[in-house]
């Protein structure tokens, strides 16, 4: 569909869809995202929803929202503040109003602004009438009633008709931003294939929303955001959990071993289980176990049998799996533990993001039980991180932590689809023959005889004749694998298991530092999902003439070999983390470098502007010590993501192109 109204060109937009948990806001956001991806904008998304499936209708705890940032240039974050808020009821307005900058556009469903709903959220007077919204562009629409009247001829109950209002809103926004609609139409066709009346109603509501924008005078013109320049290639939009699942499948495929997932449902990791459960046609076996412990137990049993055993969970599940992870450390078998971190402690904030399981992954076991840790930096990067986890697990015969988080899991971004043949070749060899001889010269198998380079022991799976052996959690004699309580052997084994994990550093790339001028005093070091906000902040600081270096860790254990030297090369190192400084603690302990944590645990990603402030504060502190007057200007709180193209030097934009 095309519009006949005037079209105004924009370089970037942040839209937030907000409504009741039952209003279908996540679906609406997902669809708008897909339309946007297909159009070729770069984008980043932030779903934000309550842990309750259906909190009481119309209340603040029940508000669910989906934020999408899309642009004609590369996008690093879901955006600090929305330019457009779609509020399906007073609760959605009230919950999101504090985030709205002056001049933002607000589209509201006036049908929901009745006395009862206003009272539910503590509005004494209607914000539509009392001046609350004076500084915004408000489009008050009877979304519900218009949708119902558009569906007057349908043989559906009023409630069923009302339920299509999210499609009306999607249609209107699709018109407003000139999105292609074919994808949503075919999505509805497949979703409601068995419910033709509901399908027709949803299509009708969707089209009615589009036509409403086209015909009413409320919207004078529509907007256009051109495709972003991207490297040539084939793209799709992908969420972190799906990318992680695909990465595991690809990793197992490249390793030449079958994949078995043992898992127990837990937010926000369940979608990985759902995705993999749907991939039976690709040889993937999934077990929904009776509990977290059985999930990882089944995975470890499968690893013993020669599969890539995987378990997926979040922080509380990791706590339950700790003992089995320790067993895997002792057995020296490949195993992958995907921890999609959420707010803690205990049940914490199940649907919100946090990075507070780093130390749990690092140390949360009895005894000296080192486990490598890999962390993705963006939703799509889960794919490559998962393959790397498979590589480490199979090469070194060790459990590996893959530390994602709620923001990466549910967030999405465009992804340049890789060629499978170009993925790392990580084929593993199983043991097939004896590896030693006994005193009489008879060939024997020693299950703990190690590869001198990797220190990995052979992966000898049941069914292999002549290699029958027994392994267990009791300390074993190196080489033979026999039970051993010998003090010297235990000391040797503890150190050997640590040395094996440390040896992985030889195969991971050195950390790269982005320090264009080479004379930065301040380094911002991040890990995991803070990559987007940190990069956006660094870009903003530089756009104003500030000088700052940036580096990001994929491997948290072991660290890249050059990390200590990198840290010592800067006067000040800032480590932004969504915890109380866990990486900072590790860095200080290992390198004796006085890194400065910059932390928040609000269950949401960092905003760009708070990081800009933190970097500015660090650089001014150094300048103050040096007695110079060259402190940067007061930050203008406008991250580079929000800087219109042209405001920053064009070279700056080009050089800061961030590969995904």
């Amino acid at each position, binding site marked *: 569909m095309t519009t006949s109204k005037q079209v105004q060109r924009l370089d970037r937009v942040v839209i937030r869809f907000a409504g009741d948990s039952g209003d279908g806001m996540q679906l609406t956001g997902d669809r708008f995202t897909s339309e946007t991806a297909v159009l070729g904008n770069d984008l980043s998304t932030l779903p934000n929803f309550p842990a309750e499936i259906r909190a009481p209708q119309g209340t603040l705890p029940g508000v669910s929202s989906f934020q999408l940032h899309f642009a004609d240039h590369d996008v690093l974050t879901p955006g600090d503040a929305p330019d457009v808020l779609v509020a399906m009821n007073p609760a959605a307005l009230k919950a999101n109003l504090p985030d709205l900058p002056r001049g933002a556009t607000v589209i509201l469903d006036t049908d929901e602004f009745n006395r009862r709903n206003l009272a539910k959220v503590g509005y004494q007077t209607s914000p539509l009438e009392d001046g609350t919204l004076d500084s915004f562009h408000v489009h008050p629409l009877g979304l519900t009633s218009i949708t119902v009247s558009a569906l007057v001829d349908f043989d559906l109950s009023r409630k069923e008709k009302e339920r299509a209002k999210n499609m009306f809103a999607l249609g209107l926004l699709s018109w407003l931003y000139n999105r292609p609609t074919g994808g949503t139409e075919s999505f509805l066709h497949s979703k409601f294939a068995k419910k033709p009346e509901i399908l027709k109603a949803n299509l009708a509501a969707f089209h009615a929303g589009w036509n409403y924008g086209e015909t009413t005078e409320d919207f004078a013109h529509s907007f256009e955001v051109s495709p972003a320049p991207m490297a040539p290639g084939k793209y799709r939009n992908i969420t972190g959990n799906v990318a992680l699942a695909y990465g595991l499948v690809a990793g197992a495929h490249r390793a030449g071993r079958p994949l*078995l997932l043992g898992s127990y449902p837990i937010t926000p990791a369940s979608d990985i289980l759902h995705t993999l459960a749907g991939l039976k046609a690709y040889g993937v076996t999934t077990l929904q*176990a009776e509990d977290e412990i*059985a999930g990882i137990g089944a995975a470890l049993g499968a690893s013993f049998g020669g599969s890539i*055993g995987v378990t997926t969970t979040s922080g509380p599940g990791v706590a339950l799996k700790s*003992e089995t992870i320790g067993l895997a450390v002792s057995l020296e078998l490949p195993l992958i533990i995907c921890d999609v971190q959420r707010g803690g402690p205990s049940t914490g904030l199940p649907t919100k993001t946090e990075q507070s399981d780093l130390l749990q992954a690092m140390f949360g076991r009895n005894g000296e039980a080192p486990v490598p840790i890999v962390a993705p930096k963006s939703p799509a990067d889960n794919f490559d991180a998962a393959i790397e986890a498979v590589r480490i697990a199979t090469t070194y015969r060790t459990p590996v932590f893959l530390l994602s988080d709620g923001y990466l899991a549910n967030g999405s971004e465009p992804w340049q689809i890789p060629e*499978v043949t170009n993925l790392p070749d990580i084929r593993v060899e199983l043991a097939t023959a004896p590896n030693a001889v006994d005193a009489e010269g008879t060939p024997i198998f020693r299950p703990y005889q190690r590869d001198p380079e990797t220190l990995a022991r052979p992966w000898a799976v049941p*069914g292999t004749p002549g290699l029958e052996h027994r392994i*267990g959690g009791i300390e074993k004699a190196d080489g033979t694998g026999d039970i051993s309580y010998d003090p010297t052997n235990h000391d040797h084994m503890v150190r050997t298991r640590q040395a094996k994990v440390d040896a992985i550093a030889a195969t991971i790339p050195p950390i790269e530092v982005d320090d264009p001028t080479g004379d930065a005093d301040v380094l911002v070091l991040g890990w995991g999902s803070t990559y987007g906000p940190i990069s956006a902040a660094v870009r903003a600081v530089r756009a104003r003439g500030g000088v700052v270096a940036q580096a990001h860790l994929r491997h948290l254990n072991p660290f890249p070999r050059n990390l200590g030297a990198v840290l010592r090369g800067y006067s000040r190192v800032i480590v932004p983390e969504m915890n109380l400084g866990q990486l900072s603690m590790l860095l200080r302990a290992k390198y004796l470098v006085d890194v400065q944590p910059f932390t928040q645990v609000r269950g949401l990603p960092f905003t760009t502007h708070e990081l800009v402030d933190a970097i500015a504060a660090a650089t001014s502190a150094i300048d103050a010590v040096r007695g110079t007057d060259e402190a940067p200007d007061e930050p203008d709180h406008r991250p580079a993501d929000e800087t219109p193209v042209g405001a920053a030097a064009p070279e700056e934009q080009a050089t800061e192109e961030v590969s995904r």
Partner: protein
Amino acid sequence: MSTVELGMPLSGVAGVPTLDAGAPRQTKKDFTSDQEVRWCPGCGDYAVLATMQGFLPELGLKRENIVFVSGIGCSSRFPYYMDTYGMHSIHGRAPAIATGLAVSRPDLSVWVVTGDGDALSIGGNHLIHALRRNVNLKILLFNNRIYGLTKGQYSPTSETGKVTKSTPAGSVDNPFNPVSLALGAEATFVARSLDSDRKHLSSVLRAAAQHRGTALVEIYQNCPIFNDGAFDVLKDRDSAQGRLLHLVDGEPVALGVDGARQVVVRTPDGSLAVVPETDADPAAVVRHDASNPDPSQQFALSRLDGADMAHVPLGIFRNVERPTYDDQVREQVGSAVAKRGGPVQDTDLGALIAGRDTWTVGA
């Protein structure tokens, strides 16, 4: 990955490679590892180990395709002494680990060795879920009614009132009856045997190995250090005759010798009772039927066994066919793979990760 036709009664070892034609017959020695057995002198575990090592050759399976998985406890040292593949895992988790192994490897005969604490206390959850799923596992539950490895605390099968280090005033816990529990969890094969009765134990192991699905075998096992003589009344020839009810399919459930025989009858209120055969109404005499899908009589038999061990049924309580979890999981995967077009090629994977909504950016 092989797929299995469902609905056909299959042996528990179907799909497990057997010895090559002409290969020498296996002996007990083939299954004896080089590890020194370190149970206490007189432990019932020795007898079970010897029975197992003596029994396995008759299956004729390739040794490398047999796996023993255990948890923690005295009995869980078992895998170290078997010259097969084995894993001594962590407390209570053996059924979960064995499930992952069995699902992914239909060519293995997987045995779980566990104890009353391991299976019924810390690992109770995994046990009941393995039983309800009917994974093709053989679970040997060594029940000595005591915690041995931690030196003598009461277990979930210890009788009420038991005085131990942790219950100086006597245990107030009501014990589990493992057979009743397994039947309640809808197990498809449930049996009980005695550590010292090599012939009986071998026959139960034989039936368990043939059963496709989870087989739970409770083995009354003596702990000579912390609960010595717990089952002596069942082992002494004279006292055993008046207590052991041998379960034989199609036969009346009876004990004692001719002349003093007692039989199990169904009383008018529906419960079971043990009465002298001479007093029994022939129509009320209970005949054992392990293959009856309705478990109520099998369950009622399991309840005859009280703390006093006055009447202890021994043998196979239940042995019914039900599709196994692992066969069905493999069938779903296998048929989905076949339907898509066989083994996954790079191009298949490429199409998967690309999905349907893609766009191309030109150079």
